[in-house]
């Protein structure tokens, strides 16, 4: 009961802060302190969101699909690389610097290239998302695998466990915490990555919608789509949290 109360009070303050910012913003637009054309009021943004709702949703569907496929492929590749690099030290030495290098490439710079190579459809977007998401996944899993307790591994060996068994019983479950931490980062990377690659070429998606409304100077719609993207990222992160609790029941037991 007390805990529930504490939870509600801890939620009051951030909510109050947000409400206050919205109130100031609304008053500023209402009183004409800033031009409504440059900064639409929150109410205008909500109206734009409602008016364009079907269009926003159909575009969001495309963006989410790209994000999903990209993330799934990113996780798969990240997992595979982490396993191989953990198993074979030479691979680790050879590829780790290279993987770090891929992260220094500015996403915005290669997106147009990907469009040139793979066209305007889904492919270049998915590839871009893979590039931005596999890194945190690989690094966190690899870290998790490598930080497995040496004594536990000795114990497993003394019980005659094979390398495969040591992996499944010790290294993999031990790295789940780090994996989920990186997954939380990766889901928002995936959404943002999808939007950025849609800016640079495509027919559907929230990024395409964004460039269109920007060209039409409909800043109310612009804000509506920005909020939608934030909301999507937040919801996805929340889903990751729920999934983590489901996958790691031992964490919540006391």
């Amino acid at each position, binding site marked *: 009961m007390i805990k529930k109360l504490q939870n509600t009070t801890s939620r009051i303050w951030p909510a109050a802060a947000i409400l206050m910012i919205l109130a100031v913003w609304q008053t500023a637009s209402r009183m004409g302190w800033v031009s409504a054309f440059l900064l639409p009021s929150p109410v205008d943004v909500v109206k734009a969101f409602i008016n364009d709702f079907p269009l926003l949703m159909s575009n969001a569907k495309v963006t989410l699909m790209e994000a999903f496929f990209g993330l799934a492929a990113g996780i798969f590749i990240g997992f595979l690389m982490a396993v191989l690099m953990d198993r074979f030290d030479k691979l680790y030495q050879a590829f780790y610097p290279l993987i770090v290098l891929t992260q220094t490439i500015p996403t915005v710079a290669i997106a147009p290239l990907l469009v040139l190579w793979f066209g305007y459809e889904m492919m270049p977007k998915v590839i871009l998302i893979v590039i931005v998401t596999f890194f945190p996944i690989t690094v966190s899993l690899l870290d998790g695998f490598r930080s497995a307790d040496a*004594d536990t591994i*000795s114990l*497993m060996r*003394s*019980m005659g466990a094979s390398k495969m068994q040591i992996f499944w*019983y*010790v290294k993999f479950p031990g790295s789940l915490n780090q994996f989920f931490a990186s997954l939380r980062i990766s889901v928002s990377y995936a959404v943002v990555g999808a939007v950025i690659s849609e800016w640079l070429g495509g027919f559907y998606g929230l990024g395409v919608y964004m460039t269109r409304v920007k060209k039409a100077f409909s800043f109310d719609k612009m804000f509506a789509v920005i909020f939608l993207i934030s909301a999507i990222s937040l919801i996805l992160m929340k889903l990751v949290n729920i999934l983590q609790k489901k996958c*790691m029941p031992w964490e919540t*037991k006391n």
Partner: protein
Amino acid sequence: MAELIVKDVTLAYEKDNIIENIQLELHDKELVCLLGASGGGKTTLFNVISGLQKPNCGQVLLNGEDITGQPGQISYMLQKDLLLPYRTIEDNVALPLLLKGENKKAARKKAGEFFKEFGLEGTQKKYPKQLSGGMRQRAALLRTYMFSKDVALLDEPFSALDTLTKSDMHRWYLDVMEKIHLSTLFITHDIDEAILLSDRIYLLTGKPGRITDEIVVREPKPRRKDFNLTEEFLEYKKMILEKL
């Protein structure tokens, strides 16, 4: 029938011998203790016996068979309980059976039969962090027992516990041993613990570590409750202190 013989084992690390010419025997149903100061090579010796490390020379024989450098033959309980935090107690205890390829259901059932004997009833579905240190140690010991019912190596199994829990665990341990008759070789640096629990005590001293003495504790089992307060107990203690 289980018998462990360690013959002339020497192990060096970067040219320095850590243990030298170790000879020891563990007979069926015996509880033998390896007593020595920390850092004296006791754990190294256990790593050799369990097969985790290969000695530079010497042999480890289990029931006459050479098992030098072959892990997976003898139960080994390391210093910490090392229960896997993400597995329930029953799945932790059943782990050795799962590693041997038994299916989950059968492994759980087999392990479950011993929960009562080890004083672990009701902990099956709990996670290690929900248990006290003493209970975790019991679970770890049961897991060790599930691996092999012949010979077990225990590396300071009770050293991490507080004094009261420790004396509780000693009584419990002697009790369990009466029932399951496991041949056990265990390490300790606690002289009282060594006298209280063992049939025989090997002293491992010096650098490199050698077995310098062997003491037989001629106190019948089950031991009296107040054995550690008797004259005889003190005599043993005095004798060991002089030799260390």
